[in-house]
């Protein structure tokens, strides 16, 4: 176990180094942040002064070395455009995104797994076919379009839900969250559902195919022969056996929900970190881009670790120390 975790940590350090270098080279290739940040009224002397103040007059490897030197002390640099520590900017925005992603994942699991089970147990029933057809829509319709349609229907025509923004927030352990009051919940519902749609369809399909396969297994037949009620067969035996691929996918997809909620956040004006990333890319705010990606890499590393630990609980045959991560 300890060996396993140590190896994981070492691997992630290498991943972090590679990612930071790639972004440095990438942003350097795109252009000069000063060209966008500077007020157009500035003259050449002012531009030169600002360039030097941000250290952008140095060769790229010097800039990268400076970044690494500060990074080991935990300082990932200050945002060019907002003049604030990049990490602070991201952590300020993180609760909103994590809340949205958690809520979306909850929607996806609570709706996706049962619907998938239903469709897997009775594959030929009309409602199963409806579920599967629905999941195709969930897969193929673009997020931004569905989001806009939801706003048009639920806010503009029906007036049931607020169109955009994050509602009233309450403090929970010092973190502002919006799911503890009604205003916050009404604001959270549409973006969460919008973000969940794709994952929901994915989970339906995954659960269905897993269920169909499991239903043909000998242990199900045996359980039936033994006279176990259907509820117990599906709820305990089938579900437990199809859980491993589902947990993997939930884990991986949760990371991507947090990292790439950008489209939903933009459509619903949700003040999360995805919007921060897009804005930062548009003005080549390199410290924020680098810090964002490094934080996301860490997030994926942690999620993968948790998933691996969950495996060993779900399936006693998995031994972590031998697993090649």
């Amino acid at each position, binding site marked *: 176990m300890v060996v396993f975790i140590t190896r994981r940590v070492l691997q992630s350090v290498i991943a972090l180094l590679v990612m930071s270098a790639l972004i440095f080279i990438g942003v350097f290739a795109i252009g000069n942040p*000063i060209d966008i940040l500077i007020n157009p009224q500035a003259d050449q002397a002012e531009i030169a002064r600002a360039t030097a103040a941000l250290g952008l007059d140095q060769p790229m490897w010097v800039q990268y070395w400076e970044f690494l030197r500060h990074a080991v002390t935990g300082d990932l640099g200050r945002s060019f455009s*907002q*003049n604030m520590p990049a990490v602070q900017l991201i952590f300020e925005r993180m609760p909103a995104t994590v809340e949205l992603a958690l809520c979306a994942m909850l929607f996806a699991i609570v709706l996706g797994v049962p619907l998938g089970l239903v469709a897997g147990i009775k594959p030929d029933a009309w409602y199963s076919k409806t579920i599967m057809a629905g999941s195709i829509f969930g897969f193929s319709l673009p997020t931004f379009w569905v989001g*806009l349609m939801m*706003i048009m229907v639920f806010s503009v025509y*029906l007036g049931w839900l607020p169109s955009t923004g994050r509602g009233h927030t309450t403090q929970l352990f010092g973190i502002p969250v919006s799911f503890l009051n009604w205003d916050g919940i009404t604001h959270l519902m549409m973006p969460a559902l919008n973000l969940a749609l794709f994952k929901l369809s994915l989970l339906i399909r995954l659960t269905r195919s897993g269920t169909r396969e499991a239903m043909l297994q000998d242990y199900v037949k045996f359980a039936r022969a033994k006279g176990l009620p259907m509820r117990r067969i599906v709820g305990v035996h089938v579900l437990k056996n199809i859980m491993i691929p589902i947990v993997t996918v939930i884990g991986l997809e949760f990371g991507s929900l947090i990292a790439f909620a950008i489209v939903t956040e933009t*459509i619903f*004006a949700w003040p999360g970190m995805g919007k921060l990333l897009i804005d930062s890319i548009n003005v*080549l705010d390199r410290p924020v881009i680098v810090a964002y990606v490094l934080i996301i890499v860490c997030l994926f590393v942690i999620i993968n670790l948790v998933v691996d630990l969950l495996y060993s609980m779900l399936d006693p045959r998995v031994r972590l120390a031998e697993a090649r991560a």
Partner: protein
Amino acid sequence: MIARLLTAVLLVVATAPVLPAAAVELVIGLAADVTSIDPHNNNAAPNNSIAEQIFNKLIENDPRQNLKPGLAESWRTIDDLTWEFKLRRGVKFHDGSEFTAADVAYSIERPGIINTPGGFTIYTRSIIDKIIVDPYTIRLKTATPYPNMPTDMAGLIIVSSKAARDATNADFDSGKATIGTGPWKFVRYAKGDRIELARNDNYWGPKPAWDKVTFRLITSDPSRIAALLAGDVQMIEVVPTADFARLKTNNNITVFTTVSNRMIHLHLDSSRDKSPFITDKAGKPLDKNPLKDARVRKAISKAINRNAIVERVMEGLAIPAGQLMPEGFFGVSPNLKAEVYDPEGAKKLLAEAGYPDGFGITLHGPNNRYVNDEQIVQAVAQMLARVGIATKVETLPFSVYVSRANKIEFSAALLGWGVTTGEATYPLRSLAATYSAPKGLGTWNWGRYSNPPMDALLEQGLATVDNAKREKLLQQATELLINDSGLIPLHYQVNTWAARKGLVYGPRTDERTYAHEVRPAP
């Protein structure tokens, strides 16, 4: 039945106009992100628009960007090197302290102390000394005659020397240091989400009509429109051209428009002997640069059908441009009109210049910066093709585009220029003057156009304090530039706002959305 009734009731509620008379709170949807509340941190329009409602400047801009008294009641030159500002008496900051000349002196120092990349030192760099004559009089000394001092002071926010001293960016975002003299007091700033302000009942000017205002940051165009239609916000700025016609016919919505100070134009590579994207018609590099010839540049200008761009691409939300700024700004020449579409004349000029069959060129432009920028470039390319100039189009995200254009990598490039100062020295100095780093001229002259007689007029204008004389010089300089086709103006943008019925906004050329200028309809 009950469900149906309920739906009907909800429908009525949703479509009923929001009555501003009953609502004391105003909610406005903004189109661009506000990144900081510190008024000296980042000189970007969305930030300035908010700061200017909490704070004041010595001199304010009216909706047409004419200068009007702000915290200064009057200003004049004592001699060629000294400006004197008489300050308004009895003005109180939000914390109750009195506004005096010391606050002005500190506000002029602060941009240089905090030192940020997109900062405000451009407005203070000309000042070499500040003399506080008495608490209500301050004199500013410059090294050379400096007529643009009032314009600069119309860009610099005055903060409280007590509250802002040693304050960090975070102190402003939290409201601790956000103590101004303006019509609104700071309440709350949630990054990426909203800014909440409350009315300052002790404001020295006309008081806002609302107790509270919330600015929601809704950067996605369709979402902003939806928020307005749903009644979540009562007013939005920057209506997308595609939705404008539909909103205009909506009975619950009123739209407001005015010409913008932003001019969209083309820079043509006019000084190099060889230009990177100039080819013959077969696509082989040309060892001559036709754009050096003023006749070729004029031909390009004549080949562009500006009315068609305005009608088709901009859906009527633009005005054909014939010079650097729309009518009514300081330094606009009465003799210049938008170039008339004349393809035959263009062909004739090309033939005279020795290119009867035209040549090949690539037109570059951004694709995420100005209203419909990509479509404009494509339309211009088709028009040029019609007079024999085989034109390719390449559009790039602005972040990539601006860096390459600043390195003069293009032969023809589209740029938009918002004349935030409201007068002609700014565009002339930045876009048209001969590039010179020591003089600080021609910083954005992407065509490296050079016209020494025009430079002379401009430099004379930059040092002439007499307003009438200066305006004449700037008009002449603009005429020299446009008649020589030093750059090709296409159109001025139109600024748009849309509000629920019952609200009135006096639209502004400077794209600002001021809550205190939103009023209930009489």
